[in-house]
């Protein structure tokens, strides 16, 4: 059964995937460390603390120190995961990540819950809308957001097993479980959910579910959709984007500012190739506020309806 035929009923937050996978990885490899900054419960590392206390450090509310400490650990062969919220992991720690992790290319992973608009009721201060863009501009950094529980677990596992800095972004809220447990993922390789010939939709993270719904509806209306899960925005799967140029028209969908994230990364390739057209669905370069998550998506046009309308406009 193809993923598009599945009824997506079960839901789980992808921060849970990190919490579960990191325990498994930590047991397999004693060099895996978790560095918490006082929000272990919220970032789902409590089990790791309980089961692997000797591989755990909590520095309190001191993110900058956490990043530097992780770099120091990495120089001794450890594989530290700094666990925090995306808004702090990308911004409060940004310079430390640049200077002490990316510049010396150390094997540090930044694992962040509360990605995008998912910390909805926390308000604009806590919604990380620019994180992936910031991290994408640091040399040596890999930037990833899985779409659901199982894909996130696989991507966390791969991040632990590859050498080098990785930024992983998770959802606070639950998202539908899209993939089966046995589905394979490769960092830097887009996951093709469906082949199509009229329009291509490239989505990632918590918005993949919206892209799936939009695809189903467009197909019903006789529009053939190619659908990609671009879980890694850096290194971007350039070949997959170039393949979309055979379709010609591309919609990107992301829970991130339309500046500097997935949409921008795709536009860079399309512009360099000199053909094709892109429409970006995402956060409209504006801060959020306290509101239900779905309401915030709606305020930015990150909806099934808007994806469908955008597709139709592009096909006119």
């Amino acid at each position: 059964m193809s993923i598009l035929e599945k009824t997506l009923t079960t839901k789980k937050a992808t921060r849970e995937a990190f919490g579960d996978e990191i325990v498994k990885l930590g047991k397999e490899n004693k060099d895996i460390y978790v560095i918490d900054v006082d929000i272990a419960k919220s970032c789902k590392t409590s089990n790791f603390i309980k089961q692997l206390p000797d591989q755990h450090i909590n520095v309190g509310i001191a993110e900058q120190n956490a990043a530097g400490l992780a770099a120091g650990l990495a120089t001794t062969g450890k594989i530290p995961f700094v666990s925090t919220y995306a808004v702090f992991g990308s911004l409060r720690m940004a310079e430390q990540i640049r200077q002490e992790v990316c510049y010396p290319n150390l094997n540090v992973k930044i694992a962040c819950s509360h990605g995008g608009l998912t910390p909805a009721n926390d308000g604009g201060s806590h919604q990380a809308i620019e994180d992936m863009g910031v991290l994408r501009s640091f040399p040596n950094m890999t930037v990833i957001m899985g779409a659901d529980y199982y894909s996130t677990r696989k991507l966390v596992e791969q991040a632990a097993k590859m050498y080098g800095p990785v930024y992983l972004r998770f959802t606070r809220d639950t998202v539908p479980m899209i993939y089966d447990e046995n589905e394979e993922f490769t960092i830097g390789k887009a996951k093709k959910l469906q082949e199509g010939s009229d329009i291509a939709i490239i989505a990632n993270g918590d918005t993949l579910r919206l892209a799936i719904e939009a695809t189903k509806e467009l197909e019903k209306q006789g529009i053939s959709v190619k659908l990609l899960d671009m879980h890694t925005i850096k290194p971007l799967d350039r070949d997959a984007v170039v393949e979309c140029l055979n379709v010609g028209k591309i919609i990107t969908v992301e829970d991130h500012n339309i500046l500097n994230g997935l949409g921008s990364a795709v536009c860079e390739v399309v512009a360099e190739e000199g053909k094709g057209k892109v429409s970006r669905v995402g956060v409209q370069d504006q801060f959020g506020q306290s509101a239900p998550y779905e309401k915030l998506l709606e305020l930015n046009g990150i909806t099934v309806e808007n994806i469908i309308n955008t597709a139709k406009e592009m096909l006119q």
Partner: protein
Amino acid sequence: MKVKNISVEELKEIAIEMRKTAVTMIHKAQSGHPGGSLSAADLMTALYFKEMNIDPNNPNWEDRDRFVLSKGHVCPIQYSALALKGYVPYETIYTLREYGSPFQGHPDMKKCPGIDISTGSLGQGLSCGVGMAIAGKRDKKSYRVFSLLGDGECQEGQIWEAAQTAVKYQLDNLVVFVDNNRLQIDGFTDEIMPLQDIEKKFEVFGFETKRIDGHSMEEIVETLDEVRVAKNGKPKCIVMDTVKGKGVSYMEDVAEWHGVAPNDEEYKQAIGEISGGLK
């Protein structure tokens, strides 16, 4: 812990070579930071030529003592130690800040053997040292971590985040030195942003502390002897009263010599003065 059997008098002689080498590389490059390099010269000599358990032929040896130059801009004095110890050919000093040189403007662990962590952005190095020291404890290794901070650098909040972590994790394998030369780029620290009593600050954070004359090789060596045996669960902080530009009369206590290179005439005078040893 293997400590080299070397006398204070011999260390003083090496300190002269360290200062000469640092000033020479900055003069050749016509760029770099002489003031802080000279204030840190005596400690760096004692660490590299007596105290630290290191092997220039095996710079990545996993049981080595680590050194973190948190005030990364004074790397010429660390480069002097690396060149004199043979981590790199001595002639490397003539390539400071040049394209392709292991001696980058600020320490780069990817380009230079003997650099345990890249630094350059102030306030960040100590956190890395804390990470190394925690790893040493968890892995039951006997190596120690030495880190040199500037006094001006202690204006950065992250220093204190790192300090509280060192105390929490009982890092008695971590020794922090503060090069208290009382000057920063814009002037005296007391005018730019007073630091109050740095030693007391580290003490209330939970460090075992001591304040010494950072240009007395006798005091430095004596202090390192004390620190070596103090395995009491407390990280150590040694505040060293120093003079920026120490050993070159026209640079001493002059903020402007933070980051400028001497011209040919000034260089000649500097080498002459340094050769006579510290007064």
